[in-house]
């Protein structure tokens, strides 16, 4: 019974998603995101060089040429290769962080909205405190205190995104818990966790999918910003924000070093945002 229910939900979600074809904006977004996902998956195949291979001959003239299409950086590393490998960095850190933040945020939001009372008050108070920090200040404190690494960046994103997701899920739970099918489930004597995760959460999925997609975009920006501020992944990991930071001072001589990674991160974030807008559009139709 539960199995076929889940199967039905998945099919319906997929049917919804294929409606995206009717939103040109959403399709552009989907194309950009799919492009970068493919680039990240096939990085070893399509990358012309390793991300940290130094071509010392290229140091004489690092500008784009036939052997290095996007040029090289100040250490003779191929920019195209680093942009390609950099997509792997972003597309592992962001999904992991967003997924964990969603798991915790959904749980806390469901608990707060379903039980209300002191559980709600406690979760709200803690969320309020975290949300009172401007996000960038929290990022700086967390990374300064615990040091820059992929794991710490993921933890910082989770720490900052979770209360926001909790808020959204709580709000939707407060609304959905008054529905008749919830009363029916309670009457059947279903356990509270079953009601929360099988009855409430799937019915809140529309706005949550859109938010998750937008959040992937924000998280991509956050990873890039941390890299740009010198708080990102330690070198020599290829990281778009870090590439811009390393070459920003040289922009007046070799603008290509900063332009290509800046264009890469922009196209990925624009992709997530347009995809989210397309999905919002089709979910508002009914």
């Amino acid at each position, binding site marked *: 019974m539960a199995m076929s229910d889940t199967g039905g939900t998945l099919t319906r979600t997929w049917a919804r998603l294929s409606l995206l074809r009717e939103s040109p904006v959403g399709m552009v977004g989907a194309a950009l995101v799919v492009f970068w996902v493919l680039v990240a998956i096939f990085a070893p195949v399509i990358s012309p060089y390793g991300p940290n291979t130094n071509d010392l001959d290229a140091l004489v003239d690092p500008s784009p040429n036939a052997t290095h299409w996007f040029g090289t950086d100040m250490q003779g590393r191929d920019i195209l290769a680093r942009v390609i490998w950099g997509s792997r960095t972003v597309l592992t850190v962001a999904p992991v962080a967003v997924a964990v933040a969603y798991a915790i945020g959904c749980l806390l939001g469901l608990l707060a909205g379903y039980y209300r009372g002191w559980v709600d008050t406690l979760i709200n108070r803690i969320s309020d405190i975290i949300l009172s920090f401007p*996000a*960038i200040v929290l990022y700086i404190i967390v990374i300064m*205190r615990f040091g820059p690494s992929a794991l710490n960046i993921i933890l910082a994103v989770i720490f900052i995104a979770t209360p926001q997701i909790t808020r959204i899920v709580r709000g939707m739970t407060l609304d959905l818990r008054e529905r008749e099918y919830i009363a029916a489930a309670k009457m059947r004597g279903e356990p509270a966790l079953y009601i929360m995760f099988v009855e409430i959460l799937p019915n809140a999925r529309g706005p949550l999918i859109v938010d998750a997609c937008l959040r992937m975009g924000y998280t991509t920006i956050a990873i890039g910003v941390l890299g*740009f*501020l010198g708080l990102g992944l330690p070198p020599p990991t290829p990281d778009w924000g870090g590439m811009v930071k390393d070459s920003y001072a040289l922009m007046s001589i070799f603008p290509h070093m900063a332009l290509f990674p*800046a*264009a890469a991160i922009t196209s990925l974030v624009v992709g997530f945002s347009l995809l989210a807008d397309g999905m919002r559009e089709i979910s508002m139709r009914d």
Partner: protein
Amino acid sequence: MLAFFLKRLASLLFTMLVVSALVFAAFEFTPGQVATKILGPFSTQDQRDRLMEELGLHRPVYERYLEWLGNVLTGDLGYSTLYKVPVNDIIWDRLGNTLFLAMIAFAVMVPLSILLGISAGMREGSKLDRTISVGSIVTTSVPEFASGVFLASIFVIGLGWLPGTATLDQGAGWPIAAQLVLPVAVIVLYDLGYVVRMVRASMVEVMTRPYIRTAVLKGLTFRDVILKHALRNAMIAPFTVILLQINYMITGVVVVEAVFAYPGFGRMLLDSALSQDVATVQAASLFAVLVSVSTQIAGDLGYMMLNPRIRFS
């Protein structure tokens, strides 16, 4: 109204107390590092112990927290190890510079986003609406450092019209007004989209109300319907959102200040964090949270005054 204000004020004080404890605790797990940092890696354990005692770091955490809190409340923000001056001597100048930048950006962003939001929202689904909506999604999706790179390569490197840095230093040969153009442009581009979408959504909603239909049916021109009937009501909901942008502009402009070497509050926070200057980071974080919580309360109060139908209890 007064009761609501007092309640919010109490919650502000409570939040600030918890935040101050968190900010203090974040850097207090390993006070030994402070001594190593000041004396260098080649100092002996004995030297470090003596310095720790001198600095009072051997006392229990809560005692040092209360002392620190007392100092902060009486206006002593500690000594900056990066700038080699008391934090008080640097933080106010930097806040002033950021406020200056924020005010200009705010003065450009608010009228522009209201104009775009109203134009998009007055005819939902029109070509103009789609263009503005998609355009605002795109501008908001460009990270500030990336739009800094794009704008700099056009206006600084390509055309040579503007300077690439905004150090507020007259000696660089560029007037301050020219230095501010790109930082303001980056802030406005990044921040604009969100406000435009809020104004648009509110406008779309107002345009479906019966009194708008009445105004149209009684023969008013479209212009009068928009200016005299729709505009004022459409501005209530986005008011809070607009006010919250002050918060972003004062505390969130770290990236813009880093891109253009602007001597502001955000850059001070970043530089002090990168060089482990704890006193400055703590003071700056407290200020950032204070600004953030205060603008939220101001937003709520303003919203309440604008919209008499809503009264918080």
